[in-house]
């Protein structure tokens, strides 16, 4: 829980991560629903684009800084910035201030934004005090802890707590749930063979639980894992956790044919 | 410039300064003279002997309680018989004059390649980890600890301390600096180098037995 009391109807800027915006709009709607159900006022600023993580992780610090400035400007007037991705939100929370080490004014703004930026599920539980959701999902799921959310933002118990309240849903934990799936941004295309091996290790652990559904909180990992599952012809369905929690997992899962 | 000077000035340059001034140096020297005490592992056991024994035995070492130093030969003889070891041993003279049964060959010198049994006096036992501390010296040859296949260590009960740090206090009180060699030994020699599976007796003793005296 945060120390400062939460306003009755906080204004939340929803960060539509580049992958979500393009590849999986339903995660955005699921996020908005969960936030509104929790009593937030949700806006999606049109001036937002990318958080700058690709540049930051690939060496282009200047590019990352330019995009960070743009995001700060687009979101700093909100009470909170929330996004359905541990990795993008970790960039904002942990890396933004460091990008402006030599620019006092921007550093201050970056720090202020970082302090009110949250990954979706940790925001719902830790800030808004949500303990359960009103949703139904009939299936057995296993949950993959995406690395940035887990290790940079401490997202671990929150998704499990909320999933526990979904009617009809059973959680089966896999071995090594906290081990990287091999996505790693550009890693997965630069070192595809290693990435494939890591995906297969992850998917083997997931399969051993007998779960019919794999969930996670970062779309990058999910596209990578769903893509590998589809290639191997596996029937296991892949959704973003928010889709299940919002009751929006009734459409085709990632990579699944239109039903 | 010597490699020494090159290295030291490279360090100073990288740290953006010249040699430390007198005040800074004496502050660092004071830190060595009176070492700061750091967090330790909690060892709240009332019975340090029990803790020592339990920890030491957790790593495949064995222990035995005896009454006095005079009992050492009897225990060693029994051990030798149990494992079929010939009645011959290197024994540190720090253990003093012990009366060995008829037929035993005792040598106080360095352990040669053929030696199968060593008997040494521990300087301290550490309850925290169940380790013994050996110091080298003319009466405590270091080869006794590593060459024989079976190592018997004699540990007076009053020398069992709680933490590593208690050894440092005692060592500083002893006042001769560090001995040439000093060994914490925590059990038989082991290796996990073949498929990460532990095997005992890699190079050092395969068997380690501590006789706790008192």
């Amino acid at each position, binding site marked *: 829980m945060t120390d400062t009391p939460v306003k009755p109807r906080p204004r939340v800027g929803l960060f539509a991560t580049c992958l979500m915006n393009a590849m999986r709009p339903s995660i955005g709607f699921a996020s908005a629903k969960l936030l509104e159900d929790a009593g937030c006022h949700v806006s999606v600023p049109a001036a937002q684009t990318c958080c700058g993580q690709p540049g930051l992780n690939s060496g282009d610090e200047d590019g990352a800084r330019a995009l960070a400035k743009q995001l700060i400007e687009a979101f700093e007037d909100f009470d909170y910035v929330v996004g359905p991705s541990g990795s993008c939100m970790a960039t904002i929370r942990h890396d933004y201030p460091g990008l402006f080490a030599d620019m006092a004014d921007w550093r201050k703004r970056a720090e202020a934004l970082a302090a009110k930026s949250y990954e979706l599920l940790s925001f719902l539980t830790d800030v808004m005090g949500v303990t359960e959701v009103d949703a139904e999902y009939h299936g057995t799921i296993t949950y993959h802890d995406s690395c940035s959310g887990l290790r940079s933002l401490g997202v671990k118990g929150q998704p499990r707590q909320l999933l526990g309240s979904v009617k009809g849903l059973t959680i089966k934990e896999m071995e090594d749930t906290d081990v990287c799936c091999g996505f790693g941004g550009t890693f997965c295309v630069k070192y595809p063979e290693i990435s494939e091996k890591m995906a297969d290790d992850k998917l083997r652990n997931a399969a051993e639980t007998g779960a019919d559904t794999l969930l996670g909180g970062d779309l990058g990992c999910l*596209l990578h894992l769903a893509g590998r599952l589809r290639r191997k012809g596996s029937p296991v369905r892949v959704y973003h956790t928010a889709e299940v929690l919002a009751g929006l997992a009734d459409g085709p899962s990632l990579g699944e044919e239109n039903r | 410039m010597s490699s020494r000077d090159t290295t030291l000035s490279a360090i100073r340059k990288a740290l953006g300064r010249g040699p430390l001034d007198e005040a800074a140096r004496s502050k660092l020297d004071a830190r060595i003279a009176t070492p700061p005490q750091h967090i330790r592992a909690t060892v709240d056991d009332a019975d340090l002997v029990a803790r020592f024994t339990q920890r030491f035995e957790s790593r495949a070492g064995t222990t035995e309680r005896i009454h006095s130093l005079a009992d050492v030969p009897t225990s060693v003889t029994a051990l030798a018989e149990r494992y079929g070891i010939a009645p011959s041993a290197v024994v540190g003279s720090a253990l003093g004059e012990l009366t060995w049964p008829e037929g035993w060959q005792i040598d106080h010198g360095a352990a040669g390649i053929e030696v199968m049994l060593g008997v040494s006096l521990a300087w301290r036992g550490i309850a925290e980890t169940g380790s013994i501390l050996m110091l080298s010296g003319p009466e405590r040859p270091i080869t006794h600890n590593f060459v024989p296949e079976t190592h018997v260590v004699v540990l007076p009960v009053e020398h069992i301390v709680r933490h590593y740090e208690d050894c440092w206090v005692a060592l500083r009180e002893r006042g001769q600096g560090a001995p040439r060699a000093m*060994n*914490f030994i925590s059990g038989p020699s082991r290796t996990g180098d*073949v498929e990460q599976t532990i095997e005992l007796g*890699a190079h050092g003793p395969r068997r380690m037995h501590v006789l706790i005296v008192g």
Partner: protein
Amino acid sequence: MEFRSPEFKTRAVHALHDANLQKALSNTKAGFVVKRAQAAEAMPEFEALRDTAAEIKNHVLNNLDHYLEKYEAAVTAAGGHVHYATDAEDARRIILGICKKAGARRITKGKSMVSEEMGLNEALIADGYEVVETDLGEYIIQLADEPPSHIIAPAIHKTKDQVADLFAAAHHKPRKTDRAELVAEAREVLREKYFTAEVGITGGNFLVAETGSSVIVTNEGNGDLTQTLAKVHIVTSGIERVIPTLDDLSVFLRILARSATGQETESYTTFSTGPRREGDVDGPEEYHVVLLDNGRSKMLGSRFQDMLRCIRCGACMNHCPVYGSIGGHAYGWVYPGPMGSVLTPLIKGMDGTYDLPNACTLNGRCKSVCPVRIPLPDLLREIRHNQFRKDMTPKRQKQALKLWRYVAERPKLYHFAERIGVRILASMAGGKGKLRSLPFDPGWTGARDLPAPTGRTFLELWQAKRGDQ
């Protein structure tokens, strides 16, 4: 030691198809990861000890010149000799000199990664010495004529059957397959070597300024036999390994074994302070310490100073899923895994090491277990920044980043481009929900399909529903 980091990509792919290696690597989890977690769990003070250890190292690094001088003075007072070596060549020259003066023929060695860094074995062998690695893992890979693939378990990539073959060929004895028998056979063979070597070379995990002691931590006892039975003992260590006092050392003793192997303590923690003393009946007659800089002083005061806290426990590689997939040899030099991917470019230079910091998903598991809290992912990313500034990032990637930045800095263009992109991808997928191949595929569809987008972006759908809020 050969420098093969430039071949990272091909060696990594090769490793993925090496069935023996994959079998060996699969043991790592039970052997190291689970045990470390249990050891950390069992010790309530563990996290605080990590903080303290990092603080002590930081204190030392900021005063490294002084502590080295203190250490040197204490070694000298105990009758030993301290030699500084600016680089690997300097170190080889010093050690060859000592061996020559000692009239050595046979040299035993305890495990020392610094000596690998020096390329010491090759130099000694070229000068006609017989060099015998005595750590069982090092001995195995010496027989196989391979470099170590892990800093604390050098032969982790070898299966028991491979060890059996190597021993049968080298020892001219019937092939053993029982693990205990293999260990016993090596014990027998190496015992003879300890007693006949003139020089014993070990590493130094810690150098204690207070007493002038070098400290090694081992399980086998090979280091002890190596340094006790030879006439001359040479310690090889990095300049950053000095710590002020025995009390500071205690902190590291509590975290090293737990982090490395999950043990509460290893079997042997051995302190050496100078040569044999008056009246001693054993121990070396000469004691030398060779302190290697080799790029370390340059890391001081830089954004990479934190790396010098490293105590070489191997926890980062044990927990690295990339290391766990490809093993240590793919990294191509002494230090593999996360710590190696930072150290190798810093020591060997940026040329030929491009892949090391890039072949990392920045998942942060290494940082979460590092006993001295080195922010390894941050340092790896920092090296990527240096590569970018030095124009070493591949052209295609640099162009892609440039284009991405150009578009992402213009929200209207960005959203327009995304709208076009998702429509194209959706129509290509044609209701199948996935794409098996992509035009201009950067490497995605070799092993996986691309789950297809639905054809509209979130922002356009949102704006259609809710307006421009």
